[in-house]
C-alpha cells in the first residue's frame, strides 16, 4: 500500500523500506534455483572461487589486525 503524498515522512519512509524488502524477497524467490547445470567442472570452479575469496578475506583480515595492533 503506497502512502498518500500528505502522509507523514516516517510513514513514507517505512513504506519505502517495506517495498524494497519485498523487492529483495521477490528477487531471492525468482533466482532461488540456479539455472546452470551443476556439472563437475562448474562445481569445481565455484568451489575454487569460494576458497579464493575465503583466503583473500583471511589475508586482508590479518593485515587489518596487524595494522590496528
Amino acid at each position, binding site marked *: 500500500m503506497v502512502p498518500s503524498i500528505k502522509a507523514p515522512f516516517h510513514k513514507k519512509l517505512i513504506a519505502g523500506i517495506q517495498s524494497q524488502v519485498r523487492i529483495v524477497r521477490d*528477487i531471492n524467490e525468482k*533466482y532461488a534455483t540456479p*539455472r546452470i547445470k551443476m556439472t563437475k567442472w562448474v562445481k569445481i*570452479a*565455484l568451489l575454487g572461487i569460494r576458497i*579464493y575469496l575465503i583466503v583473500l578475506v583471511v589475508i586482508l583480515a590479518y593485515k587489518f589486525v596487524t595494522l590496528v595492533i
Partner: protein
Amino acid sequence: MKEGIGARARFFYRYRRFIKTLKIYLMIAGPGIIVMVADNDAGGITTYTATGSMFGYDLIWFLILLGPIAYIVQEMTVRLGAVTKRGHAEAIFDAFGTFWGWFSLGDLLLVNWLTLITEFIGMTAALAIFGVPPILTVIIVLILLIVMVLQGRYWTWEKIVLLFCVLNLIYIPAAFLVNPSWSTVLSQGIIPHLPKGGFTSQLFFFLMANIGTTIAPWMVFFQQSSVVDKGMKEKDIPWGRFDTMIGAVFTVIVAIFCIVVTGTVLFGTNIQSAAQAAQGLMHINQYAGVFLAIGLFDAGLLGAVCISLASSWAFGEVWGWAHSLNNRIREAPWFYLLYLLILVSAGAVVLIPGAPLVLITLFVQVIAVTLLPAALVFLILLLNNEEIMGKYKNTRLQNVLSTVIVIFIITLSTIYCLTVVFPQYFR
C-alpha cells in the same frame, strides 16, 4: 576503352560497397570502442606515464601483448549480451543463484564507486594544472555527465562518448611534440626484452599494474549491458567483435603513445601520477604538458561515464527497473537517480578536506581482485553452457585461450593486490 570503363565500374562498385560497410559499422560501433578506450581511465593513464618515466620504451612490447588479452575477454561479453539479451549481473543471478548474484552486485557497486572516486581525483588534478578549483571541476563534470544521459537516446549518448574517445588520441600529437627518436622507440619497444637491471620487484610491480589496468570488473558488466541496451542481436556479433578489436587496437595505441611521451622527456624521474607528469612536462614542452593534462581529464571523464552506468545498469537489471538510456527520466526515474547518486557521492568525496584519497586508490586494487576472478570465471562458465549460448558457445580454442588468460589475470592481479597490501614482502 571498354576495359577502362570496366575498371571504373569495378572501382565505383567497390567504393559503394566500402561506404555501405562503413555505414553499417558506424551504426554498430560503440560498446567495444567505448569500453576499451575507457579502460585507459585516469588510473590507466597514471600507470602508463609512470611506466614510461621508469622504464622508457622498454615495456611497450608488453602493452602490445595485453591488447589481444583484453579483446578475448571482452569478445565473450559481446556474445553473451547479444544471445541472452541480459546484462552480466542478471545473467549471474539467473545462472548461479542469489548468493553469487548478491555477492557480484554488491562488490561491483563498491568497487565501481571507489574507482569512480579515483576518476574524479584524476580529473580534478588535471584541471588544477589550468588553475581550475576542484569544486568547479566536479560541478562541470557532473553537469556534463548528466546532460549526456538525459537526452533519452542510447544512440546519441554513444556518439557523444565516441567523440570523447577520439579526444583520447591527444597523446599521439603530444608524443610528436616531444620529438622522440622513432627508430629507438621501435628498436627498444617492439622486441620483447627485459629492461636494464633484469627482473626486479619493481619491474614485476609495474607489469602487474599494467595488467591490472587492462581488465577491470566493470568492463565485463559495462560492455554486456551496453550490448543489450543497444539492442544488438546474434547477427550483429561479427560487427561487435570487429568493434571490440578496433577498440583493443585503439587502447594499445593510446597507451604506447602515452609511454612514448614520458619515456622521452621524463625518463628516470619518479612519477607518481599523470598530473605530476603533465606538470613536469609543462616546464619542458608546454603544449605536450597541456595535451597530457587534457588527455588525463578526458580519460577520467570516460571512465566516470562508463563506471557509473555499469553500476546503474547492473542494479536496474536485478531490481527490475526500467534501465535503458532510451528511456526518459519519467520512464526510468530510479535508474537515473542511482546514476546521479553514484556520481554526486563520488564527486563529493574528492572535495572532503583531508579525505584519504591515496588509501582509496590502493583500496580499489584490493577490492577489485575480490570481484574480478568471480566475474571472469562466471563469464567462461556461461559461455560454455549450451542451453544458454546455443551455437554461440565457446569453441575449444576459445576455451583454452580464455582459461589461460583468466588464470593469468587472476594470479597476477592477486599478487598485485598482495604487493599493495604487503609492500614489505616484495622489496
